[in-house]
């Protein structure tokens, strides 16, 4: 988690918002901060307090499955990595009786008399990202939770499967610690259940149940796992495929049933359930896992009242489809699960989108309050001298010194070649030591520094900054990890640990001697964006970037803006889609920073992040533009399969066609008596392998609209799984109440079209009745799904990969949902995958946020770990360019020959190019061949020394 390192993010923990006043741009927020009882400036996260704390408490982080101490950190990687005292449990704070932690704390960081603090902040905008709450235990008790020990929640199982969890990853029954042989997952616990007040679908449980079941199966290959569903709702991008693969690989049994009853019978759990054919079953299991839904956050109500925020009837923040991030209070925004249950990628999308939204509001004061650190100029002359290495060996209190003989290591370091200064220090990372470090570097004219302490992953940035403060290039430091990978893991063998520490120090010194200063590369950025596609996604993205203050070129291949949204005539929320579209177009067209190109295609895109050049082709001729970033909002197309007579029979329509009919007076719709809708036509395994995510909502919406206009018409919806996730579950329930008939069909018994003379009908097998039904269809409406647009051509132009289904593949499925592997290129809307309007609009803003980052900075900074090609050695074979996973090497003409050249801005420093270069012409910043070979050679000295010792011994004998 990098949040802990940014100078522009101040983390305030144990705090609560008490009051908010003011208006957008100028809010005053009052915080109440509870005491931590540990001084964050002094705590070195050594963990001594936890070791000695005598008070055991139940570990909430591990879902109450184990114990921890009153003085603790919740988990090892927590940010901030500062321990705290649990006020309610600490013996000292409660009874004034103990002070062991204070006695053992090396840096004296424990402060028992810390007081709560009130703090007032001035801010321009507020983001509510409260997450989600827990379903109350009473709800879980219905399924035997709390009563039968082997009924677990999904989160408890998550901790059990975790390698660093209470059982170290072993899945056992809490009742008798045996491995369960048969496990059942019950879906929709605390979701889709009006009796517990949660009528909505939590959207994430089907997928996580499958993930957990798979992990369990990896731990216990013998286990038999059954999953009980009402519907399988794996509507996300690539989810269906993953789900089916898991079912096939692990042999899960999926059972359609309402949530079963759970009873304990002997040592096992009996599930009683009714399947869709109306039959009652009873089966025995060793463990039952409740797939618990996401509740509204517990503190939402109090906070909503304090801020005047409206919540919906389930206690989540109330928003609109057109403005999914806006609360009713201007300047107060919402994102993540608090806006409605959602999974990680969608939470990330909203997080990024809300950043864009704030940035739109505060564009004029961007950078005003941001902190920039200044450093003295580098002493290049000193850097050019022969290596003058300083070695600092850290005690880390007793963490290292308790095992490793630190003095001995320091003494040994002073004998190594190139070392001119050595010192052992108590805590190398404490602020006063860092100041000392700067002084020592200057006094001794050191030009390379080795710190033997903890892991470079945690503190290298800190020491690099210290080097910069001392006027040295930050690349001139090397760390030897003698804590995390030495003292801590070889505590029982101090001698060997000391030896290892010496060896690692020697290797680090060898590498340090070969470190070269590396220039922090900065590439300047053309402050404008190219947005390809003028549908809802493109319009919203363009508008957001323009509102953030940057030029936008918006290119639409058709003569009119609006894309697919033009054909949508209603929304479940009651908002009017054409009004939303009109507003968007109006704002974009009137925005001085947006230049619109209609009837235009993008022919060629070259360059890299910050500096792209593209050719826009219109009938009248082409134009070349320069821009810093690209947003792909190329949309998707309605799939029109040749199934059920679509395109041949005028009584067969798609849902989008129906949206048009709904706006007409009279017409086919008014004459039809019986209307049949079929879901997943051509989707989920036929022409399209995937689920298009929005068709179920669309069908329910259109059915309800028909019912409202013509209450007497019969409407049937034939479906595989109704995927009305989130709050659209309400509409599904309403539709059932309104008399719309829902019939599930099975994949191997799909509905069939029947023509009887002039009339149409559908034959379908009904599981409950156990027989085939004939339903007359005066109008047959097909939910046909969405196919990718012209992604393939663009993917070739821009060298961005597509998924097997033809949508753009994001850089990271979970954490980078709008970025592509190619830097400076972002994706949103249907080009990324099928999704409803609300999600498209949020994603468009997310892409706008990511795209605006390089524009706002004005430069792209590249960590100096990138590759560099020695063009005098390069033979132009092109192997490196072909192998680079990031497209960061290009072949350029130098004189008459082709040579490889690194696109520094795109390089991630993986080094595949260097390890595969035939002529060793590529070097990696900070990890050169010379440096690594020097480390290997230094390692060799350890071997030689042992050999010598051996000979000496033998000689002595």
């Amino acid at each position, binding site marked *: 988690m990098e949040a802990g390192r940014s100078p522009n993010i101040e983390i305030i923990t144990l705090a609560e918002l008490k009051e908010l006043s003011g208006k957008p741009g100028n809010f005053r927020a009052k915080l109440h901060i509870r005491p931590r009882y540990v001084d964050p400036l002094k705590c070195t996260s050594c963990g001594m307090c936890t070791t000695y704390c005598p008070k055991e408490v139940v570990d909430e982080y591990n879902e109450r499955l184990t114990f921890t101490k009153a003085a603790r950190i919740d988990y090892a990687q927590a940010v901030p990595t500062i321990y705290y005292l649990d006020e309610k449990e600490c013996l000292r704070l409660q009874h004034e009786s103990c002070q062991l932690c204070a006695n053992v704390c090396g840096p004296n960081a424990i402060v028992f008399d810390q007081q709560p603090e009130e703090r007032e902040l001035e801010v321009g905008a507020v983001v509510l990202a409260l997450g989600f709450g827990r379903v109350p235990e009473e709800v879980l008790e219905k399924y035997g939770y709390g009563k039968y020990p082997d009924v677990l929640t999904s989160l408890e199982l998550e901790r059990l499967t975790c390698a660093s969890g209470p059982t170290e990853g072993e899945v056992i029954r809490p009742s008798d610690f045996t491995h369960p042989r048969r496990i059942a997952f019950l879906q929709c616990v605390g979701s889709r259940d009006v009796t517990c007040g949660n009528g909505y679908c939590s959207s994430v449980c089907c997928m996580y149940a499958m993930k957990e079941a798979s992990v369990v199966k990896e731990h216990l290959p013998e286990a038999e796992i059954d999953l009980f569903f009402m519907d399988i709702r794996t509507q996300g991008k690539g989810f269906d495929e993953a789900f089916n693969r898991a079912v096939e690989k692990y042999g899960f049994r999926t059972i359609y049933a309402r949530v079963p009853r759970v009873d304990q019978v002997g040592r096992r759990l009996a599930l009683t359930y009714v399947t869709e054919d109306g039959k009652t079953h009873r089966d025995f299991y060793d463990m039952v896992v409740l797939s618990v839904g996401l509740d509204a956050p517990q503190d939402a109500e109090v906070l909503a009242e304090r801020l005047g925020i409206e919540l919906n009837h389930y206690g989540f923040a109330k928003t609109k489809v057109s403005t999914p991030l806006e609360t009713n209070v201007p300047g107060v925004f919402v994102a993540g699960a608090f806006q409605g249950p959602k999974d990680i990628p969608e939470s990330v999308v909203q997080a990024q989108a809300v950043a864009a939204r704030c940035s739109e509001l505060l564009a004029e004061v961007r950078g005003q309050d941001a902190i920039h650190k200044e450093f003295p100029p580098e002493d290049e002359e000193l850097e050019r001298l022969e290596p003058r290495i300083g070695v600092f060996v850290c005690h880390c209190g007793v963490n290292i010194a308790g095992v490793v003989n630190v003095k001995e290591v320091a003494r040994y370091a002073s004998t190594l070649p190139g070392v001119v200064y050595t010192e052992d220090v108590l805590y190398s990372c404490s602020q006063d030591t860092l100041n000392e470090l700067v002084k020592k570097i200057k006094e001794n004219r050191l030009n390379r520094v080795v710190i033997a302490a903890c892991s470079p992953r945690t503190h290298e940035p800190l020491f690099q900054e210290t080097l910069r403060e001392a006027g040295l290039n930050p690349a001139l430091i090397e760390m030897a990890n003698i804590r995390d990978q030495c003292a801590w893991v070889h505590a029982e063998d101090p001698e060997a640990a000391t030896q290892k520490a010496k060896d690692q120090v020697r290797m680090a010194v060898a590498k340090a001697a070969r470190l070269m200063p590396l220039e922090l590369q900065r590439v300047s950025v053309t402050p404008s964006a190219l947005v390809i596609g003028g549908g809802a996604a493109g319009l919203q993205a363009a508008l957001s970037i323009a509102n953030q203050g940057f030029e936008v070129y918006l290119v639409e291949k058709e003569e009119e803006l609006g894309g697919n949204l033009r054909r949508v005539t209603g929304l479940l929320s009651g908002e009017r889609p054409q009004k939303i579209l009109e507003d968007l177009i109006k704002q974009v067209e009137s925005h001085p920073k947006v230049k619109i190109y209609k009837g235009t295609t993008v022919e060629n895109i070259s360059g890299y992040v910050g500096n792209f050049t593209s050719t826009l082709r219109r009938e009248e001729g082409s134009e070349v533009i320069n821009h810093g970033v690209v947003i792909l909002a190329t949309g998707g197309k309605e799939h029109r399969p040749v199934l059920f007579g679509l395109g041949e029979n005028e009584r067969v329509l798609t849902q989008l066609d129906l949206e048009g009919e709904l706006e007409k007076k009279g017409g086919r719709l008014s004459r039809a008596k019986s209307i049949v809708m079929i879901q997943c036509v051509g989707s989920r395994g036929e022409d399209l392998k995937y689920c298009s995510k929005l068709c179920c909502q669309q069908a329910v919406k259109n059915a309800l609209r028909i019912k409202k206009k013509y209450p007497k018409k019969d409407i049937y919806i034939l479906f595989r799984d109704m995927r009305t996730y989130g709050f659209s579950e309400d509409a599904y329930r309403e539709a059932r109440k309104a008399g719309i008939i829902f019939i599930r069909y099975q994949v191997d018994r799909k509905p069939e079209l029947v023509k009887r003379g002039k009339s149409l009908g559908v034959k379908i097998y009904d599981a409950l009745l156990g027989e085939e039904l004939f339903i007359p269809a005066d109008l047959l409406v097909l939910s046909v799904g969405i196919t990718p647009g012209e992604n393939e051509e663009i993917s070739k132009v821009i060298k961005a990969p597509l998924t097997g289904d033809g949508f753009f593949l994001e850089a990271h499925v979970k954490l980078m949902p709008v970025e592509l592997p190619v830097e400076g290129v972002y994706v949103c809307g249907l080009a990324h995958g099928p999704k409803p309007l609300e999600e498209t609009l949020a994603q468009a803003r997310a892409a706008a946020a990511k795209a605006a980052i390089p524009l706002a900075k004005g430069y792209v900074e590249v960590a100096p770990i990138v590759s560099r090609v020695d063009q005098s050695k390069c033979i132009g074979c092109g192997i490196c360019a*072909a*192998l680079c996973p990031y497209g960061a090497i290009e072949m350029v003409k130098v004189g008459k020959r082709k040579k490889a050249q690194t696109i520094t801005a795109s390089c991630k420093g993986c080094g595949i190019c260097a390890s*595969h270069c*035939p002529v060793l012409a590529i070097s990696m910043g900070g990890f050169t061949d010379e440096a690594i070979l020097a480390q290997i050679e230094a390692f060799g000295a350890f071997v030689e020394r042992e050999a010598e010792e051996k000979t000496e011994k033998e000689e002595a004998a």
Partner: protein
Amino acid sequence: MAEATKRILELVGIKLERFRIDWASAAEAPLFVKIVTDFTEAIKKLGPLGEAEGLERETLRLRLEAARELTSKSRFRAAFGNLARELKKVGDYSPEGISSRVEQKLVPLIKKELLESEVKNLLSQGPVSIEALLQKTGATQDDIVPILESLSKKGKVEKQGDVWQPKAKE
């Protein structure tokens, strides 16, 4: 990378158990510990480098020297790089796919280059008989003779009775 390296080690005569590639994500500390512990145990069983292989220190050094030369040579590196490029292009990362391609495209080259380096190194130390060469490299007559002939054609070595020796520069 792994497959090619393994084949070289195999040809050098080093047991493949001495070289392992494994994966552990940042959250998998216990798995990491298991990997390191198991590997250490396995190496302990094998004993010092050369012991389980039944290789003399000198022979081992000779062969590793040749392997070092091989892996820095552009001829090998180009073939290695091209193979990686080909694998990426066809997208075949199955163990069988990789292994068969390495066998086909890389192993003959590795064999030839290794042997050539070893022979050259041996010769550079002074006159040596064919029998001694065969014994030290572990190669067959058919493998060695063409190398010697080609070296002699280039005027680098010459035959003197039973022994080959480096040709003095004129």
